[in-house]
């Protein structure tokens, strides 16, 4: 039985597996609907590994090319994990590449004051936007200082909202390793981010009792 005819809005509504089924049948629009759906996660993952917006952009694009070529091998399971694993592998290849240039790190990028305004939420007032931008920049700068393995897990679990199991699949490490890296990463961030947490009033005052 053939697959139903779909229009662009249908692609937006369709479930990942139906889209993949169509993409495997040669439907490029269905594959692109998958790309559009997961590209933000893919790009953020690449950015957290490479810390270079330009390199992350290239790695994300190459990851999707590789995914298109390899989609015949996808046989169910979590499509997002599968795509992000390919992107993460591509990023590791980039890190191993001798041609890799580290002249544009995320740290430098955030210190330059977010030139592209990519973290700005258009619904905020300029003041709110400035404050939010500052907080976001501080968080990303703090993340940039973490060791790569901890940064990656924090990015997947805390920024992208994935569960431990998905993070373990994408990074190809055990669940125990995910827990350990997450705990160590958060512990470091706790120290680095304490000033802004205190300013925002998110931390309990020392004199506050228990319960």
């Amino acid at each position, binding site marked *: 039985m053939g697959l139903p005819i779909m229009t662009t809005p249908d692609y937006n509504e369709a479930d990942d597996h139906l889209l993949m089924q169509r993409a495997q049948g040669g439907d*490029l629009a269905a594959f692109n609907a998958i790309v559009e759906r997961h*590209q933000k996660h893919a790009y953020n993952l690449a950015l957290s590994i490479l810390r270079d917006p330009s390199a992350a952009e290239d790695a994300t694009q190459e990851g*999707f090319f590789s995914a298109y*070529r390899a989609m015949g091998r996808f046989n169910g399971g979590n499509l997002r994990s599968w795509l992000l694993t390919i992107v993460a592998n591509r990023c590791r290849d980039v890190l191993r590449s001798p041609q890799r240039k580290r002249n544009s790190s995320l740290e430098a990028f955030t210190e330059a004051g977010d030139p592209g305004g990519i973290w700005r939420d258009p619904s905020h007032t300029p003041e709110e936007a400035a404050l939010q931008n500052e907080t976001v920049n501080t968080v990303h700068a703090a993340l940039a200082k973490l060791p790569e393995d901890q940064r990656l897990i924090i990015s997947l679990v805390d920024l992208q909202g994935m569960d431990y199991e998905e993070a373990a699949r994408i990074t190809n490490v055990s669940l125990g390793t995910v827990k350990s890296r997450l705990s160590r990463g958060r512990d470091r961030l706790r120290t680095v981010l304490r000033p802004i947490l205190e300013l925002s009033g998110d931390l*309990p005052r020392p004199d506050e009792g*228990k319960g």
Partner: protein
Amino acid sequence: MKERGDTVLGWLKRLTQDNYHERLSEYVDGRLSATETAKVEAQLAASDEARTEVAELRAVADLLHGTPMVEAPRSFALSHAPLPLAHAPRQHRQGLRGLSMATAAAVLALVVVTSADIAGLAGDATDTPTTGAVETAFAPEAGDGTLMDASKQESLFTPAEVQPPVIQEAPSNDLGFVEESTVIDWLRLSLSILAGALGLATLVLFWMPARPLT
């Protein structure tokens, strides 16, 4: 992991501490079982330090959860379907085809040689030369270079001495059967090595293009 200069006791202590921090981090994420949660909560009730740590961990996690992801700078949708990798590296594919054909040829040659050895040449090697030829070749000489006549020959041999094994062992060298068999053995060995090496190279080349996709 145990670090240099670390005592076993210190290492165990760090391990326990790591485990303790991990447990609190999991507690913040609500990933502990009911029993483990109860244990952590008992610890929190007893320790200010533990309560502060959990509060800070929760604040960090909330801050991170509330931090927006970076927007993708552009769409990564594909403008065209990329060529399957199987077609892209032409040189690899051509090399693979050549190697596969060479492997097949070597295996075929090995089969031919082995079959010939079993069916034909091996059969020749066991052939008994014609009785006349053997008789001529081994007919005792009379001392002046002429052959003895049959009646005299009969008197020189006992029946045991004319048994086939004695007669056949010597001529197998003289007629070159051993040398032919050695040549075939060498040929077979060489072809086996060649076919094995080519087969291995084919497999390696076949596997190589698939790597970048994983």
